[in-house]
């Protein structure tokens, strides 16, 4: 038993270390030696990686005093999300080590980086709703520091927009969680079941986590932030933190336990729109980071569709869960790889080499769903899922998925072109660690095949028909991309206002002065309030009153007036005393 206790304690320790290590390191950033911390960024993710391997599932630690009801532990979802996130953070940390060397604010960067990391890990571990909320907020707000890190005007703008969306998300989540807690009378996630989720709650949850994912009306922050954030941080943002939103959905809207046709419709429609929207707008974009953001919007849109499908029934839910896991793993790794690749290309003084280009193509086409890549596995699984669900969702597999695949192909090709056209490093660009990129490529290439849970789906993709189904959209996309330059040149003159109405929708206005607007409202109130105030301090009126009082008192001091009042009082008293 002693032995058992010992291992138990080691597991416990590991659990604490998962979020604890980054936090402690973040704390270290605040000391005078804070600048040195940046060297240990990758280390912070190591306990998480170890834990996801060693700590058994369903290990729950209860810390009742912690934030109203502390329950932490790893469950199935956690054991999937944690290693992926940890790995991506590790890569991001690795790439950041070098990137930060010359940055004067590296302590600050490390602080926010580590805090966001802690938040990310923590929310995966959290088993109660407030814990999730706590770490989600920690991550979101810490990421703000990463977005604004460059300190440029664009970064400030991006950060402001980011913060606005974070706040909206937080509030939506707060409301949703309150509603849930009110319904379930507990803070434990496990208790969330169908009756706990009213349509309003569902909508709030959709909004709250959707912001992180970038579902359609709430995507406005993404492009700007991805573009503005330093590459290592953007990697984490796009690879790991996005998943927190998805995980939130999964946690709070437990698929396979909840059926909500209306919710499904909401998710699917908005997801599908996002999938297409991301591609189209991404194509108009000239900045690599932003293109990746739109690609994320599109990809997450697809996942939203899957999630929506999962809401149609219990069985569908179970399947959707698996597909989402596969898809999100695939997408995270691919996006990480793309970001790192982009970072490497951008920071090196020379043009990208052929290997490097190949390295960029791998994750890009994986996103598009090229056979033998993780993307193909994910998409075929999706397709099968859609088919298995039967009407009315068959159209998805036949038409919609290939369409997005074509679109994605075009988009990633556009991205690669943008990266290739890179004019070399500008002054602000710092070198990104190349090894991390290679590592990520390795992961993109191998993970899906080595992953036991996805083995069935992976083996399915090896069928010829599947290969064909996977490859034709890519080819079509490639062909389309060849036509693209003509379109692009024709539109060159109007490059500043592609889809002007959309750009305004994304919050891309140059001055979105939201405090200013509120100020105006407040001022209106103030002015209207002021005019109605009685002006007590008016000097002349006060003086007038003073004079009146003085005169009256003087008159009252005359003997005749005194006599008058004396006599009147006497007579009145006499009659009143009867």
């Amino acid at each position: 038993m002693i032995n058992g206790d010992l291992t138990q304690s080691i597991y416990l320790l590991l659990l604490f270390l998962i979020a604890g290590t980054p936090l402690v390191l973040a704390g270290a950033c605040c000391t005078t030696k804070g600048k040195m911390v940046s060297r240990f960024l990758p280390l912070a993710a190591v306990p998480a990686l170890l834990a996801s391997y060693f700590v058994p599932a369903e290990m729950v630690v209860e810390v009742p005093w912690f934030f109203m009801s502390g329950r932490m532990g790893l469950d199935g979802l956690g054991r999937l999300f944690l290693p992926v996130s940890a790995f991506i953070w590790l890569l991001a940390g690795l790439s950041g080590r070098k990137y930060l060397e010359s940055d004067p604010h590296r302590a600050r960067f490390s602080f926010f980086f580590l805090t966001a990391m802690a938040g990310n890990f923590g929310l995966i571990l959290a088993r109660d709703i407030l814990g999730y909320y706590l770490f989600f907020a920690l991550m979101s707000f810490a990421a703000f520091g990463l977005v604004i890190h460059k300190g440029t005007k664009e970064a400030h703008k991006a950060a402001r927009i980011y913060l606005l969306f974070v706040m909206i998300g937080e509030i939506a989540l707060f409301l949703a969680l309150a509603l849930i807690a009110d319904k379930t009378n507990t803070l434990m996630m496990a208790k969330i079941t169908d009756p706990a989720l009213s349509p309003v709650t569902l909508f709030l949850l959709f909004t709250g986590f959707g912001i992180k994912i970038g579902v359609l009306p709430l995507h406005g922050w993404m492009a700007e932030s991805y573009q503005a954030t330093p590459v290592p941080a953007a990697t984490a943002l796009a690879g790991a933190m996005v998943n927190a939103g998805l995980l939130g959905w999964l946690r709070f809207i437990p698929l396979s336990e909840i059926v909500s046709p209306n919710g499904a419709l909401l998710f699917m429609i908005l997801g599908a729109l996002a999938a297409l929207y991301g591609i189209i707008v991404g194509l108009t974009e000239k900045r690599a980071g932003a293109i990746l953001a739109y690609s994320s919007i599109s990809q997450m849109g697809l996942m939203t569709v899957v999630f929506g499908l999962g809401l149609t029934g219990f069985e569908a839910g179970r399947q959707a869960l698996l597909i989402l896991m596969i898809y999100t793993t695939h997408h995270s790794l691919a996006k990480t790889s793309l970001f790192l690749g982009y970072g490497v290309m951008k920071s090196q003084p020379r043009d990208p080499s052929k290997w490097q280009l190949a390295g960029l193509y791998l994750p890009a086409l994986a996103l598009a769903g090229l056979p033998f890549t993780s993307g193909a596995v994910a998409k075929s699984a999706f397709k099968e899922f859609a088919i298995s669900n039967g009407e009315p969702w068959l159209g998805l597999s036949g038409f919609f998925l290939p369409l997005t695949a074509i679109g994605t192909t075009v988009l990633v090709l556009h991205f690669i072109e943008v990266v290739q056209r890179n004019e070399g490093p500008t002054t602000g660009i710092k070198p990104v660690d190349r090894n991390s990129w290679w590592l990520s490529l390795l992961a993109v290439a191998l993970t899906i095949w080595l992953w036991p849970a996805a083995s069935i789906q992976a083996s399915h993709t090896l069928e010829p028909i599947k290969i064909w189904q996977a490859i034709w959209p890519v080819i079509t996309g490639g062909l389309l991309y060849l036509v693209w330059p003509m379109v692009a040149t024709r539109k060159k003159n109007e490059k500043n206002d592609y889809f002007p109405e959309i750009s305004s929708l994304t919050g891309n206005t140059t001055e979105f002065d939201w405090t200013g607007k509120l100020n105006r409202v407040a001022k209106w109130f103030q002015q209207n309030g002021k005019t109605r105030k009685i002006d007590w301090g008016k000097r002349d009126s006060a003086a007038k009153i003073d004079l009146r009082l003085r005169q009256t008192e003087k008159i009252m001091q005359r003997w005749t007036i005194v006599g008058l009042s004396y006599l009147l009082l006497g007579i009145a008293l006499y009659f009143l005393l009867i």
Partner: protein
Amino acid sequence: MTIFNSSAWIVAPIIIPLIGGLLCFLWRRDTFFIALFISLANLLSVTTLLRQFLLFGPLRYRMGGWEAPLGIALRLHGPALLMLLMTAVSGIGITLYARGYFSFRISALKHNNRHEQQERFFWPLWLMLWTALNALFLSGDIFNLYVTLELVSVSAAALAALSGKPASQIAAFRYLLVSLLGSLSYLLGVVFVYKTYGILDLEMLRQIATPGPGLQMALTLMTLGLLLKTALFPLHFWLPPAHANALAPVSAILSGLVVKGSFFILFTLWFEIFASSITANALDLIGLLGAGAVIWGSLQAIRQQRLKLLVTYSTVAQLGYLFIAFPLTATENISQEVWTAVTFMVMAHSFAKTAMFMAAGTIFLQVGHDRIRDLAGIRKSLPITSFAYAIAGVNLIGLPPSGGFIGKWLLLTAALTSGQWHWSLVIIAGSLLASVYVFRVVSRLFLTPDEAIIQECRPHSPLQEWPALFLAIIALLLGLIAPYFSLILETTEIVANLAPGGGL
């Protein structure tokens, strides 16, 4: 201890200051010590009376051994005892302060024996006034009350004129005339009483007094005279100049004690002796005038530019509260509360106003003026005085736990319980206005001015500062020792008979 059980102690508060006054006039040297000794002896006698009262209840004393309709009786009941106590304590404070005040003036101001002369005459006059007040409170004879009233008037007028400034002479003259008019009105009332009943003793009058034309006129006249002397609102014209222009200790005496004398008589007559003849309408009229006094006095106080005038007008306002209590007695079951309330108001106001005038006097002496505008930062050089002023102000506003608060609380309770809530509005408005005029000054005193303006002018002696603080704190803590006072008030027979009878 038997000596302390002698009923003769009841004359001690009259005789002791009287002897003191005569001696002070005769001796002329060390008058302060005589006065101090007298005030302590007076306190001792009042304390003895208190003890006797608590042991044996109300006292009645036959002057010269003659029974009531023929002789004059003294009577000691709860309210009278409290008034005696109030005068004794205030008196000690005033005595001490006056010493400090005069010695500062004698030593610090250019003079041609003027201040010595003032001090020399202050002591006998003050002790005589004290005698008069004590005699007034103890008197049980309606004509004897007239004599004591005159005694009070003459000595008070003489004191008011003591400062020798032209304005004070004019004011004192006016004061004297008003006092005379008031006394004469009262005397005519007494004449009517005597015509009707052929009796002068209060207790007997209480027993046989029934409503009738003679009593009606008598009450009208006596009330008129006493209202004039108490300076109720439209008849307050004489008070501000007289009180504001007198020497500071004199102002303290006049505002703190003298007006309470005539009010005491009025209250006794209305609610004890002739309670059966009082009508609700008359009570309302008095209440109305009281309300007018509260509002008008406060407004005038707010308007004043000079400290002493401000304090004086606040007296006008505060006296109004005492009259607001009148209509509240109209409800049977709460009249005892009103009696208590009035006693508290009187005592609290007495202490507070005495302290306030002392503080104002000290400020005037130290700074050389009393323009409120230019009083910034006096706290720096006169901390104790400023505190005393502020604490006294707290009393006037009626903030807890001061005696003023207890009084106001009881009045409010009475007003709301009896359904006459309009009076409570006046009371509330009065305290708000009071806070305005109090803080107009306090905020100045407690300001931190530039260093350059602060002049180091330490007061001459602690006697100038501490008595004021002492009295102010007594007023402040009056609320906390309230149970003892209400005990005294409740052990009075009079209280039991306080409720006006069938006349309502």
